[in-house]
C-alpha cells in the first residue's frame, strides 16, 4: 500500500508562488468527485507561503514556509464532522467528503493549522487533497510539487524507496520534523530545515577595530547543559553564526583569540539574535 506524503526542504523555497498557481489551475472550476469539489475563484489558499523574517540588523534571514493541510494521523478536523464526512484513507490522504461535509463550517475551525477553507457558495469546507484524483489515476505526484522549480516541495509514495520524497527523506531524514509540533496532532508532512533561532555576531580586536578577524575561536554552550557545546571559527569577514538552536534557551557565547583576553556573553534564544561585535582586548 502506498503511503503518500510531502517532504518540504524549506531552505530551497524562494517564495515564487508557482505551487499556489498550479493548485489554482488544477482545482478552480474543476470538480474531482469524490475527492474534491471545485475550488472557488478567490479566497482559498490550499497551499500558501508564510514569509518569515528573523534576526536583526546585518544578520537577517528571509525564509518561506509552504503551508497546507498536514494530513494528520489524528485528523482533528474530523471531530466536529458528521460520520464519514472527513476520513483518512489507507494511503494517508485526509479527505473532506464534498457531499457529506456540506454545511459543516466547524470543520474549518477544527483545523489547528488553519488549512481548511470555507466555500461560501457551495457551503463546503475544502482543502488540499494531495491531488488524490491524479494519484488515483496512476500519476505519481501533485500539481504543486510538479510546478516547484527549486525542488523545495517534494511529493511521493514514502513506502516506495525510489520515489523522490522517500529519497529525500532517506538523505535528510535525520533533520526532518513536523511543522508546529506543539499542536500535537501527528501531522504527516515532513519539513527539512524549518527556520530555527540562530545566534550570529562578529569578533573584533580592540586594537585593530577596522579589520575582519578570520579564525577566532567561538564556542557556544547551552547553559545548564555543559555537555552541549559547539565550536566554530570566524569566517572571512570576521563573522560567526550558530544555526538551528533550540527556542527559549540560555546560551553562553565565548570568543577567543591568541594574545587577547577571551570574552563571554549570555543570551536567550527567544528569537534569532544578532549579538553584534565581541571586542577582544589585547593581553
Amino acid at each position, binding site marked *: 500500500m502506498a503511503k503518500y506524503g510531502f517532504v518540504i526542504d524549506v531552505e530551497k523555497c524562494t517564495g515564487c*508562488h508557482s505551487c499556489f498557481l498550479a493548485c489554482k489551475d488544477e482545482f478552480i472550476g474543476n470538480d474531482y468527485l469524490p475527492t474534491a469539489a471545485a475550488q472557488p475563484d478567490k479566497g482559498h489558499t490550499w497551499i500558501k507561503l508564510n514569509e518569515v523574517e528573523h534576526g536583526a540588523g546585518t544578520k537577517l534571514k*528571509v525564509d518561506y514556509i509552504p503551508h497546507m493541510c498536514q494530513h494528520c494521523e489524528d485528523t482533528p478536523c474530523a471531530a466536529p464532522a458528521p460520520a464519514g464526512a472527513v476520513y483518512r484513507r489507507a494511503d494517508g490522504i485526509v479527505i473532506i467528503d464534498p457531499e457529506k461535509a456540506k454545511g459543516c463550517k466547524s470543520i474549518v475551525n477544527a483545523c489547528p493549522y488553519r488549512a481548511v477553507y470555507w466555500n461560501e457558495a457551495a457551503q463546503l469546507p475544502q482543502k488540499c487533497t494531495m491531488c488524490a484524483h491524479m494519484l488515483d489515476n496512476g500519476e505519481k505526484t501533485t500539481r504543486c510539487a510538479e510546478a516547484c522549480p527549486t525542488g523545495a516541495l517534494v511529493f511521493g509514495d514514502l513506502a516506495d524507496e525510489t520515489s523522490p520524497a522517500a529519497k529525500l527523506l532517506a538523505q535528510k531524514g535525520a533533520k526532518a520534523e513536523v511543522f508546529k509540533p506543539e499542536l500535537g496532532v501527528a501531522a504527516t508532512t515532513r519539513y527539512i530545515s524549518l527556520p530555527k533561532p540562530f545566534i550570529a555576531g562578529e569578533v573584533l580586536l580592540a586594537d585593530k577595530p577596522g579589520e575582519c578577524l578570520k579564525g577566532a575561536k567561538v564556542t557556544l554552550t547551552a547553559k545548564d547543559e555543559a555537555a552541549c557545546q559547539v565550536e566554530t571559527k570566524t569566517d572571512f569577514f570576521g563573522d560567526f553564526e550558530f544555526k538551528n538552536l533550540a527556542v527559549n534557551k540560555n546560551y553562553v557565547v565565548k570568543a577567543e583569540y591568541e594574545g587577547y583576553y577571551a570574552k563571554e556573553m549570555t543570551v536567550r534564544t527567544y528569537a534569532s539574535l544578532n549579538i553584534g561585535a565581541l571586542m577582544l582586548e589585547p593581553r
Partner: protein
Amino acid sequence: MGHDKIVTSTAWSPGPGCHGGCGVKLFVQDDKVVRVEGDEQHPFSNGRACPRLLAMTQYMYHPDRITYPLKRVGERGTGKFERITWDEALDAIEEKLGRIRDEHGPEAVLFCQGTGRDIGGPISFLAYSYGSPNWVQLGLGGHSCYTPRLGAMMATQGDYAVLDAAQFSELRYDDPEYELPKVIVIWGQNPMPGCPDGFFGHWIVDCMKRGSKLIVIDPRWTWFASRAEQFLQIRPGTDGALALGLIHVIIKEHLYDKAFVEAWTEGFDELKARAAEYTPERVAEITWLPQDAIIAAARLYAGAKPAAIHWGVPIDMNPEGSTVAQAISHLWCLTGNLDVPGGNIIARPSHGVTTYPFSTQEMHELYGEEFVKRLNEKRIGANEYAMVRNFRGWAQPDLTVQQMLSGEPYPIKACWIQTSNILGGQAVDVRLHHEALKKMEFVVVADLFHNPTSMAVADIILPVASFAEKESFRSWWAPLQVIAPAVQVGECRSDWEINLELAKRFNPELKKRYETVKDLINDRMKVAGTSYDELKQAGGWVMPERGSASRPYRRYEKGLLRPDGKPGFRTPSGKVEFYSRSYAEWGLDPLPYFSEPPASEVRTPEQYEKYPLIMVTGRRSSVYFHSEHRMIPWLRECDPDPIVEIHPSVAKPLGIENGEWVCIENDQGRIKRKAVVTPIVHPKVVSVPHGWWLPEQAGQEPKLFGIWDVNCNVLTPTGTQSKSGYGGGAYKTTLVKVAKLREGRDRNG
C-alpha cells in the same frame, strides 16, 4: 486533464510578460489553451515555469482582454471606444500617419516600446520602414535599462558579457568544458522573480546547489541575501564607488590576473591611478558599508577563480550609469574572468541572428550603415550625446518628452505605442508625460488590455496576440528558437504581423521581400543556415555550434570576435580598454568615477532634511511583470496591494502600523501605499514597488485606474540622465518622506 494536442514553444513577452526564453508546453483542447507547463526537454528552463506562465489561461481568456481593433468615439479620456475591422484600423493609421509624414516629416512620429521583449524587433522595423529615427522607450528616465550596461561593455570589451551558467550548451552543467563559478556576485538584483535580460533566475539557484558562494549587493534583504556569504547593504546610487573601491583593493593587494592584464588589456596604469582615489575608507563613507566588508568582498571575489558577476537594472539607474557599468565590467576583466568557463562570458545573439537589434553592428547589418547614419540627423539626443549617436538607435527619453512639449527643434505629432504602459509603468514624472502625450494629434496603442495609457490617449487600439498565439523567433542569447502558435484568440495579431503589414504600406519596396512574417523570419535566420519550419521540425531550438562566434569560450584567443579575424577584442585597440578610447572620443571621462546622486544627504542636505528617506522603486514580484498582470485574479491574490516597505525603526516614531495606508511624498507629489513594516529594508530606505495601477477602479480621466494615488513615478523626476545620455534615471535615489494619512482629504481622495 483532457487535451487534443500539446504545442511546444518558447515564452517571450505577452503572457508571462518577461524577457523570456523558457521552453513551454501548451495543452490545447477545442482550440483553447487549457494548461501551460514547462518543457523538460528545453535547455533554457529544463521544465521549470513561473506563476505568470501557470496563469496563462486566465490571461489569454480574461474577460477584459481586447480581442478586436477599437477606435475612440468620445473625447479622449472618456473611455468610449467602438469596434472596427482590421482594415478600417490599418487604413486609418496609414492615412493619418501618412499625412503627418507628408506635412512634418517622419521624425514627427515616435515609436514607443517598453522593456526588452519581442517588440524591439518589430517596432524598430516599422519605425525605419516609415522613416522615423525616433524609436524610444518613452518615459524611461536616462534610458536606464540595460543600454547603459551594454554601452559600457561594448566600449570596454567590444562585446557583451553575462554570468556563465552553461546556458550556451545543450549539456548545461554537465558540459565537460564548463566550470562552476566559485563565487557569484549578485549586484542589484533579485534574479528569481524577474528573470531579466535573457537570464533565467533559477540558474543562480542551480549554481548555489552545486556549491557557488554568493556575495549580494542590495539595499534590501532578499532570499539570496539571506543565503550569501556576504551581504553588502549598500546606499542606493553608490554602486560606482563600491566598484572602484573593490578595484582599489584588488590592484593594491595584487589580486588581479597579471597574465591576462598584461596580454589582453590596455590602460591599467591609468585605472590604477584613478582607483587609488577610492580608498576603502572613503568608499565606506560614501556607501554606508563597513570598510572591512569592502576589503573582504574584494578578497573573496578576486581570490576565487572562476568567479562571476550578475548585475541588474539598478546599475543603469545609478547617477552616471554608463560609467558605473564600466567600473563593474572592469572587475571581471581585471580578474581574468572574461570569457572563461564559470566567469563572465561574452554573449552574442545566437548564430548571429538578429531578432531585436542590440548593437550598432546589428543595426548596420539589417538596415545599412548609410541609413543608420541618416537617421542620426534627426534622432532625438543624437546631436546632444555622442554615446547616444554612436551606440544603438534609441532616441533619448528625457529629451524626447521635453521636445513633445516644446516642439523644438521640430514638432512631435503622433505616437505609436506598442505594448508599453507609459503612464502606469516606466515614465518618470508621470504628470509631465501625461501632459506631453495629451498634446499628440494621433496616438495608436497596440496592447492586450486597457491600461492608464490607452485610456488617457489612445485614438486607435490594436489587439495583440500573446506568445501562445504567434509565430516568431528568438536569439537572445541562446539558443536560437522559434515561437509557435497554438491557438487564435479573437482577432488578435502578433506584433510582427501588425508591423509588417503597416511597414509594407509605408515602404512598398518591402512587398517584394516579405509576403508573410515567416518570410521575414526566414530571411533573418538565413545566417544560421536554417528556417522557421526547419527549426520547428527539429524540436524548436538549436544551440550555437562549438567553435563559432556565438559560443564560448576564450574566443579572443581564437580570433572569433573581431571582423578582421585576428585574436583580441572588437574594441578600437583590439584589447580590453580600462581607459576607454570610445568614451574619450565621445567626450566622456575614459575612466570610471563616482558621482553623488542628484538628490542625497550629501548633495542636497536641505532637501534631505525635509525628505529623509531614499525611495527605491522596482523590487520585483514573481507574480507581476512591471505594470502587467494586476487584473489576473490568481496572481493578484499573491501580491494584492500597492505597498511600501518601511523599517520598524522608521515606522515606530511615525506611529505607522503594519497594514495601514500611508502617504509618501516629496515636492513633486504624493501617493498612498499600504505599509509593510519589515526589517528587510535599510532604515534609511523605503522600497516602493513600481508598475502599480488598479484595473478594478475607474479608467476614465481623471482617475486613470488610480495612477495618481499609487504610481510611485508620480514622485520621480525627469532630466537626471548621465553625461553620456544613457543611465541616471532616479528610480532608486529619489528622496521622500512617509507620513500617516491625514483625516479628510487623504482618506476620501
